[in-house]
Structure formats: C-alpha cells, structure tokens
C-alpha cells in the first residue's frame, strides 16, 4: 500500500507542484491549505508524512508541528518544512517544535522525492 503524504500550503501552485512530484514517485497525496485545515484532515485519515509550508494564514507551520507532536497518533510522524534560505530562524523554531527535516525552496521534484525518501519508504 502506498504511503499517504499530507501537503500543507496556502499557495495552490505550490500544492500542485508538490502533489505532482509525489504522485509521480508513487505516493498518495492529501492537500491542506493551512495548519487548521491540516489538523482537520488528519483526524480520521492515515497520514504517513506531512510536508508543510511555514507562513500560512489561520495556523502557521510551526504551530502545526507543535500540535502534531502533541497528538498521540502523530507523535512519530515525519514532518518536513518547506523553507527559504532566509528563514533560518524559522527553521530553528520548527526544529525545536519537532520537525523532522526541511526542504529549501526553490527545489526540483527530484530533490523533493529524494528528501521524502529519507523518512518514508
């Protein structure tokens, strides 16, 4: 059974890009537009990995990671952050919150898949 990855981003084009890349690599993809949407979509679904943007309305990426780590079902779920080079302090914050890794934007689909493979088979 293929792994289900939740992609959280407020930019539609980014969600699409990431979805394409992951589906191409054989993953199932669920999309959420912000942290709150993500938390909703997590309940009841089996999610093997989360890839989240940091700056989002309603609930940003850091807060999402914190909530995920507090949820019994998501304690050990890998969470990747999508960051830019200039977001070094955010990255630290995310790591502290329990992020598993990060992908620096801009990235190629190959880079994305390569990184994802470090966390889910």
């Amino acid at each position: 059974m293929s792994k289900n990855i939740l992609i959280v981003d407020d930019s539609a084009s980014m969600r699409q890009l990431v979805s394409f890349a992951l589906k191409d690599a054989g993953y199932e993809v669920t999309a959420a537009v912000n942290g709150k949407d993500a938390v909703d979509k997590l309940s009841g679904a089996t999610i093997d990995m989360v890839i989240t943007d940091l700056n989002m309305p309603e609930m940003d990426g850091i807060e999402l990671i914190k909530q995920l780590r507090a949820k019994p079902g998501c304690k050990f779920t890998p969470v990747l952050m999508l960051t830019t080079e200039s977001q070094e302090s955010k990255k630290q914050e995310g790591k502290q919150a329990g992020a598993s890794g990060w992908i620096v934007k801009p990235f190629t689909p190959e880079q994305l898949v390569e990184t994802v493979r470090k966390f889910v088979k």
Partner: protein
Amino acid sequence: MVDFKKLYTIFVEEAMERIADLENGLLELEQSPQDKELLNTIFRAAHTIKGSSGTIGLTDIARFTHTMEEVLDAMRHDTLVADKEVISLFLEATDLIKEMVECVASESVFDISRCSALMTRMEALREGGAGSSAILPDVPGDAAAPAGCPAQERSYLIKFIPGPDLFRRGIDPSILIDELRGLGIVAHIKAYTDAVPPLSELDPEDLYVRWDIHFKSSAAEADIRKVFEFVEEGSDIRITPLTAREAEFPFLGQMLVREGAVKPEDVENALKSQKKLGEILVEKGKITPTDLERVVEQQNHKKTESLKSSISSTIRVDLRKLDHLINIVGEMVIIHSMFQQALQDIPAAGNGAPGGNGDPGQAGSLVPALQELEVLFSQLHRVGREIQESTMSLRMLPVGEVFHRFTRLVRELSVSKNKQIELAISGEETELDKGVLEKITDPLVHLIRNAIDHGIETPEERAAAGKTPKGSIHLSAFQMGDAVFIEVADDGKGLSREKILKKAHAMGLVTDPAAAREMTDEQICSMIFLPGFSTADKVSDVSGRGVGMDVVKRNIEELNGRVLIHTKPGEGTTISVKLPLTLAIIDGLIVQIGGEPFVIPISLVVESLRPGRDDVKTLTERGEVVAVRGDYLPLIRLDRLLGITSRQERPWEAIVIITAYEGKRYGLLVDELAGQQQIVLKNLGTATPRIKDIAGGTILGNGRVALVLDVPGIIEISREISRELSRR
C-alpha cells in the same frame, strides 16, 4: 636546465635508505616507546624525505610525509603515545611512501587518492593527540581525494550515535540505513545497546541504540554525509575512511578501542568468536579453499618481493674503507715512481762494466740496485694484496641490512598465524659480499616463514608442551674462517623423524623399512630438501617443513654454500647456512682436460684420487661408476660433457675428483691436476647465453683464460643424461 632524471635517481636512493630507517625505527619504537632518540631518528627520516621530495617537485610525497612528520612531532612533544595502532598506521604509511618512491623510480604514476585515508587518520591522530578533542575531524571527501580522481569503492567506518529524540522528530533510523544501501554496500553493521537503561528508567519514546556501520561505497563522502543531514544536529555522526586492511574486522575493532567505543577485552572476545574473512567466504561457498590458499600465497609472495626490491643496485661505502683504499693506492703510486727511479739507476750502476775500463767496483753496484728492486717488488706485492683486500671489502655489507627487514616479516606473519613470536638478531655487523647478500634474502625469507609456519607452535600448544607461550626465532650471523654462517634457530616443535619417513615412504623414496630404521637423523632431515618433498601434500602434512626447501638449497648452492639442519623434537630446529665470504674471489683447483685448463671451486672438492684399474666398472643400470672405499660413485666424464677430447681415455691413468651434491658423491674425471690458486671469477658477459655447466671465467697466473665449472649444474646434466639412457 636541471637534469631531473639524475635528481630523481639520487632522491630515490636516499629516500629508500630513509624509508628503511623509518621502518626499522618504528619497529624498534614499538619495543621501547619511550626512546626519545629513536623518535628523533624517525622524525628526521620523515623530515628528510619531505624536504628532498619537496625540493624536486614531488609534491604528493612531500605532502604525505609532512602529515607524517606533524604526527611524529606530536609524539616528540608527548601529546601522543606510540602504541601498537600508531605504529601499524605509520608502518602502513611507510609502505605507501615506498610505493610512491618506487613509482618515481620506475617513472610510473601513483594513484595519490590511495593516500587520503591514511592522511585523514594521521591528521585525526595528531588532533586527537593534541588534546583538543578526540573526535575525528570531518574531512569532506573531495578535500581528501583530489578532484578528477576516478570514483573508487572505498570503505568507511560510520559511527552513528543518534540523539535520543530521533523518534519524536519523526525520524526512523532504519530508513537512514536503508538509504545508505542505496549508495553502496553495508558490509557490517553493529548495534550497541549498552546505553539502554533498566526498564524502570526506560523512556520508550527515547532512542538509546547506536550503530557502527562498515560501509563500502564509491560515492563521495559528502554524499554519504548527506544521508544524515536531518539528524546531524543532536546526533553524533562520524564518517571515517578506512584502508583496505582496516576494512577487515580485526582492525575495525582496534579502531573502536582507540576511539573508546569498546573495551579491548570486548574486541578480544569478539575476535575469538570471529573467523577470518577468507574462512567466512570459504564457508559461504563464495571461494574454494584452493582460491584462498592461492591468494594468501600471493600476498606472502608480494611481501617477499618487496623485501627483495629494497636492495638497490648501488652500494654505499663506509668512508673509512674508501680512505684506506685511497691511502694504499697512493702508496702504490709512490712505489711505482721509486721502481721507475731504481730502474733508471741500473744502467748507471752497470755503466762501463762491459767495457772493463772503469772502476772494478762499479760492476758490483748492480747487485745493490737489484736488491733494491727486490725490496720494492715485495713492497709492491704487499700493496697489491692490500688493494685487493680493500677493494673487496668495498663490496662487503653488514648482514644487519637484510636482517632488520625480517623484523617486519616476523611481526606480520606472526599476527596472521596467531602466534606470538619474538625475533632475536645477533651478529648483524658480520659482513658479506653484496652479491651474496642479495641472493641470500630469498632463501632466508623462506626459512623464516617456515619457522613461523611450521616450527613454532601456537601459544596454546606451547603452553600444553610446558613452554613459554611466546616462541622465539634467533637469526644470527658469524664469520668462521673464510665462510660466513647464517643461522635461523627456532624453539618450536622440531622435525619429526616419523613424519618425514612416512612422507618419504608415501613418495616412494624409502621402500625398505629396515633401511629406514638405519638412516641417520641427518639423512632423514636432508630428505626435506628433495624437490617436491612436501608440495605433494603440503596442507595436511603436519611437519611440512619442505615447502620450497629444494629451492632454498638450490639457491644456497648456487652461492657455493651449504645448508645444515639440526633439530630436536619438541625443542626446535636450527638451520645453518654456510656461505663463502664473497663470490668474486674463490679458491680454485685447476685441472686439465684435453689440454685445456678448467677451474673447480675447492669448496666443492671432497678429495681427488687415481682409481685402480679394477675400481672402474660399467653397471647396466647405472652406467660408469668408480669404486671408492666400497661405494660405487657415478663417474662423470667431463670431456664428453664439455665436448672436448680428453688425453686420458682410461680413468686409471687419469684423476677422479670426488664432489658431493645433495648428499650424494660423484666422481668427475679429469686428465690431471694443474695446481691451486685464488681466482677472480668473471661473468662470461651478457653476450654469452648462460651455460649450465660453466659458472664463469677467470684469468690464470700464466695469463691463460680458464673456464670455471659449475659443479651442481654438471651433476644435474649428467643425471638427466642417465635418466634418458635408462628410459631407452
């Protein structure tokens, strides 16, 4: 324009000497790690190589030796102790330098990437030793291995000590290890669970395990590191490139001990339960035992080769010897001019004597002039002898040069055979002709290997036999008369009479049990020199000393030397090699055959006699024989062998020279004896093909050229002939 070729030659020669200093120094340092003077010598050797290689633009060697020098400097300043691992590392480094220098000599290209692993380890040592931190530095792969170098599979030790919160960060370490598999081969992985706390204190969400991964990959080190990019923080990841040798498990263990990861006892225990790589492969059916044996043999052969190649074709002369020679030559020049003066004085002294009108005393003055000449002549004779001796001594080198190379051989072989062996060396100042010294190295390697392989028992066997667990090999040299003796003595189990006899019986050498009982120990021991004596069944043969002993014997005999064995079951074996001091000048017996003079080395002559008419017989199976005190010896007619016509067809009118070869006596038929003298053996030159029955040529006192007979060669030819005959 600088002649770089010439510079290289000088560099290579010097570097080889320094490399020998390095090697010997390191081996000695292992015994006495506190010896500051020794450390200085080693340091200077590395320093010299670095300096001279740098000067002539051999930057790779300079860079490598520089690293070595820096570590040695740390040792000089007591921040690093020369333990066994450090010495092994340096010995490996020395080998590499040697290979690099050999590449310079042969003008071939050295793959410098082979140095990077050692460089990294040496740097790690220095930094660890300097007390800054014991952590191995992160050396990005591309910094250690120069760009553009072809991707080669290399071994790494990856120590992965994950932070305890790895799971809580959503990271599964097993996936990381899987990812490694995508980059190369995970040859060996060991999980350490010693940090797992007792159940009462255990947090199931924490990760307590750490791993050592022996990883083989052709990927760049940076790429390997990238696998761990998200765990680097909070975890400890050390990637250390390993050399091929270390990649085998025992060394891995040693590294772990050095890094404090495991206790020496742990490795010791692990090693006991662990089999050699080769054995594992055999067990898994990947290779056959024969393959393994062949490779091991090749490995050993390589060691022998490197021992051989280390004697250069030039010679370094003790300045005192050279000064002495120059002094005598000076003396000769003076005597020469005195001679000239004395000769000029003769006509003056004899002037008028024939005319008879001069002073009657003048005729008598010829006598003192001649007397003076006679005195000068005897002086010239003395000086001539001295020059001869002195020139010869230039060719003489102390055997220590060769002996000390064996320290390394013994060290490595004893490790690989799991034996404890101490090598004692004595008489290293004994001098031997360079030519002899070169040819003796091979046979000695053989003898020492045999002693380690078959002579000395394992520590357990020794303990069971009531001996010290550590065996010993005593390598000694001494001069006696005009011969040098080199002895290899071990305190191992000795040769077993029964086993040799059993073997001889199996080979059909001894068929009569009664005859076997009568054989002396010496006769029995000499059987191990027979060709093929042990090769037929060498793996299972317990005593098995005969591996290549026929070759050893043959080599020694080519030097006009002899091999003797003394053995006592349970106490050990001593093999003595008797060698002539030099090959260049030998005592020769001059014989006449068909009007031509020939020389037979006196060392090979047992006796000479004129046989009685009834002593010469022709036996149907053995051909012509001569009876000497009840024994029938094969008679070899040298004239026929050499293709000349003898003047004495009948042996009882000629002379039979008795010689001994491989424990058997032979009679050589010659026309007459013509005298005995020291001869200078000359090669016949490269233009002449090597003839089996002629060892060389010489010029006799009367100015005639004589050929020197190669007696062992002659005997072998005649054996072949008689075998041919018996087949018909």
